């Protein structure tokens, strides 16, 4: 009889233990990210007492390189560095859950002023930190009052990527395109001779979730940039939409000279556009320096980058859209020794040879720090050429867009307009843009 009772007790005990083990593993290192980053790199013992670093990385494409860099740092200094990468598009969600934990990230990132608004209570003031002193320009510091709460760590550029060979085949060169009128002329000429040439002007302006940010965010940056510039401001709660007619012009040009019927744009994905560009079905492809790996098979000599012209006076002097939406922030609520370890790690990343090589070569970043190396990315170099030629780069003002809701509203309206290009539908875009901005700015207060 006695023996019989041992079994159930053991079983129950086993279940209980299993359960607590299950709960216990919920610590840092497993949440959110579906990428391999979740495995984390915790090389050294945490109890060494000197603090540790926990970096919640935003860029899945650079996950592997960060893991390697983290273990190099641990090897060199003995300070443990954990890198967790959030899956694409899941950063805010992962950050929200990770920050609620006891072992919260010590290093995380925000995308600009709007992102900072929700996290500023967690940001350590970086003014006077060594790494801040390494910045090449104050512009890359994200400030709130006189506090520096974030610092940009990678600069990116976007414009209209074009295929040189195809453009020449159509009888033009990049020198022929200096403003919106000439861009329109070239694009419409290519469309008129589409069957004879065998390719279209633009890749599909897909409005699927994997591609719509190119238009509702990046393209929408241009009318915002010009309005801010005209009004001499760098943020607003009430956009006027002064340049929305220009936005319409460029959007019309994109959708009516593309590889597909504008009615079908809602189904086109980011991969569709890449595929069309890579298989030489289209000359122009709006995207940025980060897309280099997708298109490099066309050959470095064959790739160029044009500014996005929208028909504003004096735009012949406009350059590429250059900026950052990647700002490093240090968690204020972390233990003092962890904060110090994190600051040391950041500084090491942008000053040591290993760190700089990893960031510039392996990850292919342009970093806004003094130690930046020349890039092997043709698109980056093309963007720099415009800078050297004295063109004014367009700043990234889309980081001031009031919310995701606003972007989605504009995106939906653009899709509806593409399917039926009536004035009424454009009014809906205007409404989403102007009234939506006011509503969202008020809602986010």
């Amino acid at each position, binding site marked *: 009889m006695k023996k019989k009772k041992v079994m159930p007790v053991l079983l129950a005990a086993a279940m209980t233990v299993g359960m607590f083990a299950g709960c216990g593993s919920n610590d840092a290192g497993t949440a959110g990210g579906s990428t391999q980053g979740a495995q984390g790199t915790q090389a050294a013992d945490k109890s060494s007492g000197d603090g540790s670093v926990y970096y919640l990385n935003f860029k899945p494409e650079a996950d592997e390189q960060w893991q390697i860099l983290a273990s190099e740092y641990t090897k060199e200094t003995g300070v443990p560095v954990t890198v967790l990468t959030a899956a694409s598009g899941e950063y805010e969600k992962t950050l*929200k859950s990770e920050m*609620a934990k006891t072992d919260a990230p010590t290093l995380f990132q925000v995308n600009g002023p709007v992102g900072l608004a929700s996290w500023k209570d967690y940001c350590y003031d970086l003014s006077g930190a060594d790494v801040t002193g390494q910045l090449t320009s104050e512009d890359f510091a994200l400030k709130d009052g006189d506090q520096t709460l974030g610092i940009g760590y990678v600069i990116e550029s976007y414009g209209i990527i074009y295929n040189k060979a195809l453009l020449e085949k159509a009888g033009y060169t990049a020198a022929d395109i200096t403003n919106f009128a000439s861009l329109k002329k070239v694009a419409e000429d290519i469309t008129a001779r589409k069957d004879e040439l065998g390719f279209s002007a633009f890749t599909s302006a897909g409005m699927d979730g994997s591609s719509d940010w190119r238009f509702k965010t990046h393209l929408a940056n241009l009318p915002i940039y010009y309005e801010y510039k005209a009004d001499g401001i760098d943020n607003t709660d009430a956009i006027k939409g002064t340049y929305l007619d220009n936005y319409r012009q460029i959007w019309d040009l994109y959708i009516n000279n593309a590889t597909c019927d504008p009615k079908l744009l809602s189904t086109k994905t980011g991969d569709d556009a890449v595929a069309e560009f890579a298989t030489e079905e289209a000359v122009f492809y709006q995207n940025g320096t980060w897309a280099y790996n997708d298109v490099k098979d066309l050959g470095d000599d064959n790739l160029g980058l044009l500014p996005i012209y929208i028909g504003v006076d004096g735009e012949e002097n406009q350059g590429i859209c250059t900026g950052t939406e990647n700002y490093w922030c240090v968690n204020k609520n972390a233990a003092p020794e962890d904060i110090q370890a994190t600051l040391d790690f950041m500084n090491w990343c942008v000053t040591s040879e290993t760190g700089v090589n990893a960031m510039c070569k392996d990850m292919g970043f342009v970093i806004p720090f003094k130690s930046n190396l020349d890039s092997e990315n043709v698109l980056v170099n093309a963007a720099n050429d415009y800078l050297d030629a004295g063109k004014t780069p367009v700043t990234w003002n889309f980081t001031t867009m009031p919310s995701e809701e606003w972007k989605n509203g504009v995106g939906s309206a653009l899709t*509806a307009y593409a399917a039926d290009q009536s004035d009424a539908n454009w009014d809906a875009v205007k409404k989403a843009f102007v009234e939506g901005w006011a509503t969202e700015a008020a809602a986010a207060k």
Partner: protein
Amino acid sequence: MKRYMPLFVLPTLCAFILGFILPFIMGVGLSFCKFTTVTDAKFVGFSNYIKALQDTVFRHSFWYTALFTVVSLLVINVIAFALAMALTQKMRGTNIFRTIFFMPNLIGGIVLGYIWQLIFNGILAKYSTALALNEWYGFWGLIILVSWQQIGYMMIIYIAGLQAIPGDVLEAAQIDGATGWQRLWKVTVPMMMPSITICSFLSVTNGFKLFDQNLSLTAGEPGKMSEMMALNIYNTFYGRTGWEGVGQAKAVLFFILVVIIGVLQLRATRSKEVQQ
């Protein structure tokens, strides 16, 4: 054996408290707060609920979801019942058919959503339009998708119910001269009420809680018009800085609503159940 009860209950009870009761209480608490992370919240009273109820998109999503639930409830259960009737007849290959009808249920909602999106858009492209351009395309798309996914599951429950009906009752009805139609409505359906209760409960709650299929098939396009309640809550939580609490408040309202509707539905069908 009774004195071991606490020991056996303990693991499940712990899991239930940790995994359900505590998050639930926290969730209700958070709906009265403004917060960025769940452990760092500031009490703001009812303002989240006021914002939630003022949201016209949320109200639209309620009607859209309610309509969806009614339509999917009818379509799924009628077809599942008919299939169950057909597959309990003595014919060859019933097991193969049962397996085939059940299989879609084993595929995840997100995957299904994307696959059906390709199918629907492929067809709609012939007419120069797309799912994301009309909220009713999205609506019927979701109905087709969910029916395809859930009919097999409900069918299995109905088959089990049908097999439990004693043959002699039906036989007696037949000898008494009842027609096939009469036997269905006067004998089979009343005897099947327990299964109907379960299936309708499942389809009503599934309909209200539908999330992944909605997210991957339409993502609320055009302009949130095909956004159902669960997706609306999710988008509220992540869509705007500082609106996490409003999403939470909507989730609490949503919970209350689903409970009320679930209870009403159970009452309605339970009262029709007969003693066998």
